[in-house]
């Protein structure tokens, strides 16, 4: 029988893409993303024993990842003592992959310019989450989700146009 930690690590391994994507929209710097990945992992592990509904693992991971990232973005502006991150073998850099795709690069740059809330809503929209799932993760009503997505999409389009015309 698997221990709780083994069970958790297996889930984390299967869903780690969510952590990477949340990191990508919130942090530009590679070392900040690594720090935040570790922090999210720890927060997920801390709350894992309280996870009652194992059918909504994805939503739980999104919630913890978004809340953890938001609580850390403020720290970027001050002197930051980095946590020690264990040396891991070099993996393909996600940014290298993105730089090969101009449209994706443009989209990501436009997302960076959104505020913390709109970033998370746009991420969930881009991940094709249903309104009801987004409502659960963000804690707002379904109708509100629709309003917010439309508004965020408009802002994103404006950002893309600005970036396209090099006006920033």
């Amino acid at each position, binding site marked *: 029988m698997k221990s709780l930690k083994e069970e958790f690590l297996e889930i984390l391994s299967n869903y780690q893409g969510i952590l990477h994507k949340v990191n990508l929209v919130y942090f530009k710097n590679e070392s900040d993303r690594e720090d935040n990945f570790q922090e999210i*992992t720890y927060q997920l592990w801390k*709350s894992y024993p309280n996870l009652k509904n194992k059918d909504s693992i994805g939503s739980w991971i999104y*919630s913890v990842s978004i809340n953890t990232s938001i609580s850390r973005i403020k720290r970027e502006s001050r002197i930051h003592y980095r946590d020690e991150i264990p040396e891991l073998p070099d993996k393909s850099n996600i940014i290298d992959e993105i730089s090969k795709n101009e449209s994706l690069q443009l989209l990501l740059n436009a997302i960076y310019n959104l505020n913390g809330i709109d970033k998370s809503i746009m991420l969930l929209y881009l991940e094709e989450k249903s309104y009801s799932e987004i409502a659960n993760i963000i804690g707002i009503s379904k109708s509100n989700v629709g309003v917010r997505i439309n508004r965020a999409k408009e802002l994103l389009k404006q950002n893309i146009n600005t970036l396209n015309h090099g006006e920033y």
Partner: protein
Amino acid sequence: MQKIWKNINAGIPQKSIEELNLLLTSKTKQTLNKFLLPMSISILVCIALIIYLTITSLNRQDDLIYIINNLTLGLITTIALFSGMISWYKLQNNRYNQPLKEWLEVRIHLLSKWLTGKQSKLYVLLIPILYTLTVLSIHVYFENKTFIEVLNTKESIIGLVVGTLIGLFVSYFAVRKIRKYQMLKLEFLNDLYGRLNNAR
């Protein structure tokens, strides 16, 4: 946009279970150290102070004012230690596994209570009281005079006033720094919460 976004999946790095385990273990150790170190230092300092107060009070049983000074100091220190530990635990025990809006509400409530609540300005009163009582307790004991005699000595009074002023300045500076950082954090969370509520 959703189609473009899907391309990102090709670039997502995959960490192995062993690597994830290594990250988790190292983070758990760091967090435990961050939490335990300041807590252990505070507890040790308070215990040392209480032992010192007990010993010096026993040695000065004939000086009632000195004993009252030490008792007051001991009592305030013990209460401050416990309430400080509770606040610290609440601030550290950040529960992220809830909807964003709920999480923001909890954090804002906790920080507001701490920074702008009824007892938020208590430190303005407590720091000088604690500092003065501590300085008096040490100074009177090592001067080998009674409490009243020390207060009647001009040099002692000058030393106490200058020492207290310097100490208070340093303490206030440190507390203000911490509060300023927490206030910025509170403003940031309030701003995000406002944005969530201003959808319509």
